[in-house]
């Protein structure tokens, strides 16, 4: 798991609409990456649904949230529509799990990402990271706000 204080590895991934999103292009903004195992798996569904509800507060706090999994952009599009959510989803599809691997959250055995949160500051430095002890355990949205508060105070 990538540690706080280290520069976040740059990445370029397509979102659900095929738009390329790179860390470089997000410079100057606070970013929350929510790595999750798979689209359409029941637990992830709860996670993104709840995160959707806190989007307005996140935006007010000046942070942008992205979901990341190894699914393709087309699967992401369908998943987004199925849930009725607007959180942009990035496809860590090819090479599969490459970004998750570089952030140290890829589960090589299962071929999917662990459930993890990474807060990246405007300078591209990791401010906070958290990985769930089990894929069934969803990190509460409160942790994101704790981390934002902590980063703002630092």
């Amino acid at each position, binding site marked *: 798991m990538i540690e706080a204080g280290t520069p976040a590895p740059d990445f370029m991934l397509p979102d659900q609409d095929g738009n390329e999103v790179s860390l470089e292009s997000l410079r100057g903004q606070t970013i929350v990456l929510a790595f999750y195992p798979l689209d359409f798996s029941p637990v992830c569904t709860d996670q993104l649904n709840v995160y959707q*509800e806190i989007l307005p507060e996140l935006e007010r706090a000046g942070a942008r949230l992205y979901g990341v999994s190894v699914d393709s952009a087309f699967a992401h599009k369908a998943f987004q529509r199925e849930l009725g959510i607007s959180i942009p989803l990035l496809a860590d599809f090819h090479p599969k799990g490459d970004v998750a691997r570089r952030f140290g959250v890829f589960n090589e055995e299962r071929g999917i990402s662990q459930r993890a949160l990474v807060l990246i500051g405007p300078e591209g430095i990791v401010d906070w990271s958290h990985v769930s002890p089990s894929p069934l355990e969803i990190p509460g949205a409160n942790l994101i706000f704790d981390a934002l*508060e902590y980063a703002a105070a630092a």
Partner: protein
Amino acid sequence: MADLRSAPPPEVGEADHVRGLAGDPLVIEYADYECPYCAQTDLLLRDLAVRRVFRHFPVPSKHPRARVLAAAAEAAALQGRFWEMHDALFADQSRIDDPHLWERARRLHLDLDRFERDRRSEAVAERVAGDFRSGVRAGVVTTPTLFVEGKLHAAVPGPELLEHLIGGAG
């Protein structure tokens, strides 16, 4: 953003909906009327000697009517019939459209005009949102989530938790 930082679920307060006897084990419940697991949990808890506090945790992207139903229960609460509406909502989760809500309100002898006004009011929406925020702060991410003696239990209570609650009552 400050109000979403981590904090334990708020203590039982004036505004809370509480059911059961003061001496019984306290269960603080975050749930949603459109969630089938919440209905199941409601059935399980109903038979136990516990003191229940019900708080709303509607997630509309999962359950599109959740917020509307929570507001209906709060509107009934303003006429002193929260638990009656609560029971009526969980009793039939397939009938949750507006006419079904009016039917429930009529059966509970609520003032319908007031019910309609209240369930769409800012105050009621804020009451429901306040419960949701307190749940998020306490780490709730799924429904139902129960807090027993300060410990978070996500999902339908299993045999261990139920036994603990029964034991606690004895």
